[in-house]
């Protein structure tokens, strides 16, 4: 059994809304409602869902970039929730993040060398010479030239900028990299290059990825395990093959069906999802997906389904998982 790099238990995060009047009851956006999962060393864990279902909040909480309401996040055996900034600083070398937008996440005033070297400050004192060597080394490992250190971000294309962002995350030799939609701003052919790079880096450095995306094809390509999120909770979790072959939650099925297929013969029969994610600001009874679910029944409005085992290493929160899975195999 390999080591667990990240263990998240019952993570809760609610954002208070501005009060409408002095005496009104405080209202909240329920962004995360008890999320639990763990990632083993050297594996990739994918998180999928629509915008507004709490994916990015989860990433920020795992990275300890904002205060968490309750629950625990243990990275390499160290609790990161409820730690002060100065306590967290030396721990940050073990977990790094790659952001979505390679145009916004690199400071345009700094040279690439300075951007990539910045996380090294968390390691304490190191000599300039070692710093330069490590920057060159890490730039080469992401496929850039070591002479690129003197350039500025605007001199690079979108794909190359994302390589710089990955280099910055890699320089402290972290065990966990949280990637929040790292390829969704890139073109198809560039996206393929960055995905291959991420895979190669995992093979050579053994890093663990927590990979957030709304593109299911990308997640299937890169991840060993997937969790599907809806309204701040995980509705289905399992090995990528199982989950894609026989989805046990209607939301997963709809998400899979919504991906356009690049093949001739254009009309497909499928269930389309109406509306958007709603109900982030209320806590209610029953299944969170009840409003938009094509198979919702009375029971779904009364009982909240819990995450149940539907197969080896495959969990789903739906009253009708068995029926759905039978349908998929038939």
């Amino acid at each position, binding site marked *: 059994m390999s080591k667990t790099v990240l263990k998240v238990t019952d993570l809760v995060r609610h954002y208070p809304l501005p009060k409408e009047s002095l005496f009104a009851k405080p209202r909240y956006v329920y962004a995360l409602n008890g999320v639990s999962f763990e990632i083993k060393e050297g594996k990739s864990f994918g998180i999928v869902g629509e915008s507004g279902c709490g994916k990015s909040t989860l990433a920020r909480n795992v990275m300890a970039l904002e205060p968490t309401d309750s629950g625990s996040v243990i990275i390499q055996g160290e609790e990161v929730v409820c730690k002060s900034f100065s306590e967290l600083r030396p721990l940050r070398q073990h977990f790094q993040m790659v952001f979505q937008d390679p145009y916004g996440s690199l400071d345009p005033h700094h040279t690439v060398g300075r951007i990539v070297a910045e996380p090294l400050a968390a390691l304490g004192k190191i000599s300039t010479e070692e710093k330069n060597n490590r920057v060159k080394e890490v730039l080469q490992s992401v496929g850039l030239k070591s002479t690129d250190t003197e350039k500025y971000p605007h001199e690079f294309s979108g794909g190359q900028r994302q390589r710089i962002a990955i280099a910055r995350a890699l320089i402290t030799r972290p065990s966990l990299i949280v990637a929040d939609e790292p390829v969704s701003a890139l073109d198809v052919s560039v996206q393929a290059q960055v995905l291959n790079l991420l*895979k190669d880096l995992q093979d050579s450095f053994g890093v663990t990825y927590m990979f957030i995306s709304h593109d299911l094809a990308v997640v299937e390509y890169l991840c060993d395990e997937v969790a599907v999120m809806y309204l701040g909770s995980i509705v289905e979790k399992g090995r990528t093959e199982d989950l894609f072959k026989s989805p046990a939650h209607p939301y997963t099925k709809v998400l899979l069906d*919504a*991906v356009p297929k690049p*093949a*001739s013969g*254009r*009309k497909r029969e499928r269930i389309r999802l109406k509306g958007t994610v709603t109900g982030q600001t209320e806590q209610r009874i029953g299944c969170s997906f009840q409003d938009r679910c094509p198979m919702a029944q009375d029971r779904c409005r009364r009982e909240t389904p819990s995450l149940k085992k539907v197969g080896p290493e495959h969990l789903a929160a739906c009253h009708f998982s068995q029926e759905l899975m039978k349908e998929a195999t038939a």
Partner: protein
Amino acid sequence: MTALALMGLLPENASTTGSVNLDGENLLQKSEAEMCRVRGNKMAMIFQEPMTSLNPVHTVGRQIMEPLRLHKGLSKSSAMQEAIRLLDRVGIPNPAERVSNYPHQLSGGQRQRVMIALALSCSPDVLIADEPTTALDVTIQDQILELIQTLVQEEGMSLVLISHDLGVIAENTDNVIVMYGGTVVESGKTDHIFDQLTHPYTQGLFAAMPKVGMGRGKRLTTIPGTVPDLINLPSGCTFTDRCPLASDICAGNIPPVNQMEGSHLVTCHHLQQAVSARSKGLYE
């Protein structure tokens, strides 16, 4: 860029040759004042980023009313009525309230719906959608594309859909052109092209795309290099530097247009090799 040229929205220092015919009139010869009467009226465009293409300091109602009052000469109150009807048409709940909202109060999908309402306002003959769904989620993308499809059918418009997502193209179009380095490298009926990917670039694009059901074992194939600098495009075939089939002839000579089945055209020197490489994959 093609979309901007069609709409006559190119930067001032651009020069155009050739012709853009809409209903038998060449748009390139029209003056700016004349183009203003065509744009938004006979031709309308949906842009990629619904976040930045709406004006943040005007209500969405006012933005939809603008073309109505300009092109159709409606009064303020009847333009307002029409704006509410349009918002309802594109599936925005409570259109009468939403009409006085500012763009920041709407979600990404709703903003894209407002963009569509804007484009529809004067029932144009041609609707140009430039990557209308790249900034959106799969489920919202699905809804927006379905909306565009039904509107196009019901209003009898023609649709020009620009996208880098091959799946979106396959499911929503009748004819496709594949562009590279400012030229068309392959064109034809959508079904023909997806059945018989021929040009090395088209094959590369298809291979680079992660597909659901592909599994994790294989590596994604990539096209080596990057898109050429449009300032000094290579002479001859623009894809020469990145093409696995390239030979001496490609560098200096403009490739011939080969006709395949039906209206399927492929611009390549090495047609036979490209056809025989289909089954085994070009970029191994």
